[in-house]
């Protein structure tokens, strides 16, 4: 594997840093094309060009689960960005990827299908705060010369390189130019605190998609020597665009209660004196912020409940988003909880589709004890 001139990249390193011997590609333009120019999928265009063979190698997931270095890293081709209400929407594509859908506790493998041409991706962030939002849904409607070609609700996905994004494999009959209307659904998570108008409504933007077989063949991909080892490919450099890392632990408002790694997830919990939203509240507000190790990505779409000696009921944490806290699961503590041990139960693991390296992690959780301080 050759030395690369890396653009500025962000790492979150833990003691088992996976920095050695890896690279993070971004735009394929700067790299020499690697393998994949021959051995097309049998899809040839009139110029004798073939789609690259992107058959993934045998998966080497560690049997014991956890976050691991995938077999390959990939580049992608950016397709621009547009404003949609308060959001900035960016779009890019890569060669088709396999991935895993979450159906509760189970992962459902999505293989590469015949006819899959591109893996279309889109990221959305709040333009004011430059934060990636855990939006509930996004639809891509693809037109060519006014004719509807294809429409899909893209899957919410998590990958080591891209962080949280929307994506899917699309079957495009031919290369060329297309208009893609990206429609962003309102956030399912509860917005907390000051937010610009428009986050509660559907927003859309139209972006141009242009690809050729050459583009697909030129997209960088490379196998990793240390695939299967614990670790993660660092976040891809997005230039001026934000990446999916959660707010740094030191920047979170309130008082930290705990920061513990349970299996493959870092649970950061904070306590605020009261609910940071507009709701009148006297009770402390508990913030639970689960993150991926290595890359510190927020983990969305989890079902978390809590029990505490103070009350009989099981309490539901509410998936929420606050500009300073970021994505989190929040709970207004019942009276008299301070000083108790609150027990968190993760009933449903993150229901976000997983790219390689994340599909045997974030699946099962034991109950997590949180020792609440006596006073704030």
């Amino acid at each position: 594997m050759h030395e690369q001139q890396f653009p500025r990249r962000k790492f979150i390193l833990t003691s088992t840093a996976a920095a050695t011997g890896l690279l993070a590609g971004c735009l394929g333009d700067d790299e020499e094309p690697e393998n994949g120019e021959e051995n097309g999928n049998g899809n040839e265009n009139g110029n004798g060009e073939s789609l690259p063979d992107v058959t993934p190698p045998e998966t080497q997931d560690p049997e014991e689960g956890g976050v691991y270095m995938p077999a390959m890293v990939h580049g992608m081709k950016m397709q621009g960005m547009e404003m949609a209400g308060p959001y900035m929407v960016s779009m890019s594509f890569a060669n088709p990827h396999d991935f895993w859908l979450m159906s509760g506790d189970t992962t459902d493998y999505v293989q590469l299908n015949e006819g899959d041409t591109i893996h279309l991706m889109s990221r959305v962030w709040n333009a004011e705060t430059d934060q990636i939002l855990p939006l509930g849904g996004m639809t891509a409607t693809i037109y060519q010369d006014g004719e509807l070609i294809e429409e899909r609700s893209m899957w919410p996905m998590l990958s080591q390189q891209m962080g949280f994004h929307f994506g899917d494999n699309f079957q495009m009959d031919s290369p060329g130019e297309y208009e893609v209307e990206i429609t962003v659904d309102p956030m399912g998570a509860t917005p907390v605190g000051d937010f610009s108008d428009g986050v509660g409504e559907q927003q859309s933007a139209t972006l141009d998609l242009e690809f050729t077989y050459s583009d697909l063949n030129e997209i960088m991909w490379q196998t990793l020597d240390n695939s299967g080892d614990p670790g993660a490919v660092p976040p891809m450099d997005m230039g001026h665009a934000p990446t999916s890392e959660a707010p740094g632990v030191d920047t979170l408002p309130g008082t930290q209660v705990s920061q513990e790694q349970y299996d493959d997830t870092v649970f950061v919990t904070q306590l605020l004196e009261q609910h940071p939203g507009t709701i009148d509240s006297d009770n402390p507000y508990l913030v639970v912020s689960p993150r991926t190790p290595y890359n510190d990505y927020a983990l969305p779409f989890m079902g978390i409940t809590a029990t505490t000696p103070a009350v009989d009921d099981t309490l539901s944490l509410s998936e929420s988003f606050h500009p300073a806290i970021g994505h989190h699961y929040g709970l207004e503590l019942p009276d008299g909880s301070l000083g108790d041990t609150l027990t968190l139960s993760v009933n449903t693991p993150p229901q976000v589709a997983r790219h390689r390296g994340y599909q045997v992690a974030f699946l099962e959780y034991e109950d997590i004890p949180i020792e609440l301080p006596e006073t704030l």
Partner: protein
Amino acid sequence: MDETSHPPLNRRRFMEIAVSIGGVSAFSACLSREESDTPTGIKPSESRDAHLPNRQHAWNDFSETDGHGNVINARHHVILLFNYDSKGLPTSTEQEELESAFRVLEHAFEWSSDGLLFTVAYSPYYFDKYDADLPDSVDLTKPKSLAPFEDPELDDPDIAIHLASNTASNVLGAEEALLGNIDTLNGAPVDHTTEDILTVYDRRTGFVGAGLPAAHDTEANGVPDNAVDEDAPLFMGFKSGFEKNQAPEDKVTIETGPFADGTTQHISKLRQNLHQWYEQDPRPRRVALMFCPAHRDEELVEGVGNNLGNTDMVEEKGCAERTEQDASERGIVGHSQKLARVRDEDGNPLILRRDFDTIDGGHAGLHFLSVQQTIDDFEVTREAMNGTDVAGTGAVGTRNNNGILQYIETLKRGNYLIPPREHRSFPSPRP
């Protein structure tokens, strides 16, 4: 159309393509291919009251039922949306002509799903032409977006006519007769039409029933070739319209006031995007999303679900009560599960669905159509289907793992009043 690029034009495909194209040539072509033995209707001399129910929407007793007692919706459908473009209000001459045009259809065909079933309905925009308001006994509101994740066009024609039959040429013929393009219909003279009175706003066609979606999954965009089960009545591959999951006709009927024996009607168009559904979602996941996680875990659904009998078993399995719990603990909620939360005091759903699939525009879709006592009944039901209350408790997203929302886009919505038969021709708000 060369042989190599399309499967042979079998009869089912032929009929449905003819219906979707429409026009006199399609009608003639259909007629020559189908059995010619279609039961005729009421002769002008016969007593109409003896033969025709006062409720235009009384279809159940005149349709077939399967072995489990489920009413089988007619196989072929056309919806014609019309405008009355003249200035001012319809005249009594026009009113008589319109009524006579409808009687032509009743003369030509028996009132049954083998003959022809049809309803004539009026929109709030039609009633706006009049000074008087509709009575309080009618809840007919204008259409609107019904979910934070949809932005449909709002249909505003004056009139909606829904034609249905098991015989494609009956539906096509009825349309051509109404438009004044043919002279006889199943032996009956077509001497009254809408030709000088109404203009066409839109035309929508479709089909429902075993074999029909499978006949079209190669040519329709939005569904993979050959993906749909031969037994499936709809593109998504499962039976719908179980007896216990439909409101009884009595319950959807307006009970008081001048429009008693009428009902309201909601008509929408959904585009279906089923590549993910068939090429990525494994079957157990599809079962959970269409019905309920319990159906997946207990393997209740065989094939398209005919084995379920006369109920989708969602209520019997307690799925509705567990919707929030399943969202939080199992990360997935089913379409039927969310709908089962809406029940009247007798435990019935509020709406009676008569929807059907379509390939209008070359893309797989659903013309959703339901009748209910009030438009509010429909809106409450749709709100339950949105599952916005469970999205954001965690796990389940706005569309992700939230029933079948991932796979559909709402393109159009419209609301109508189906008056009783006696007031079906240019009624005033206070007939």
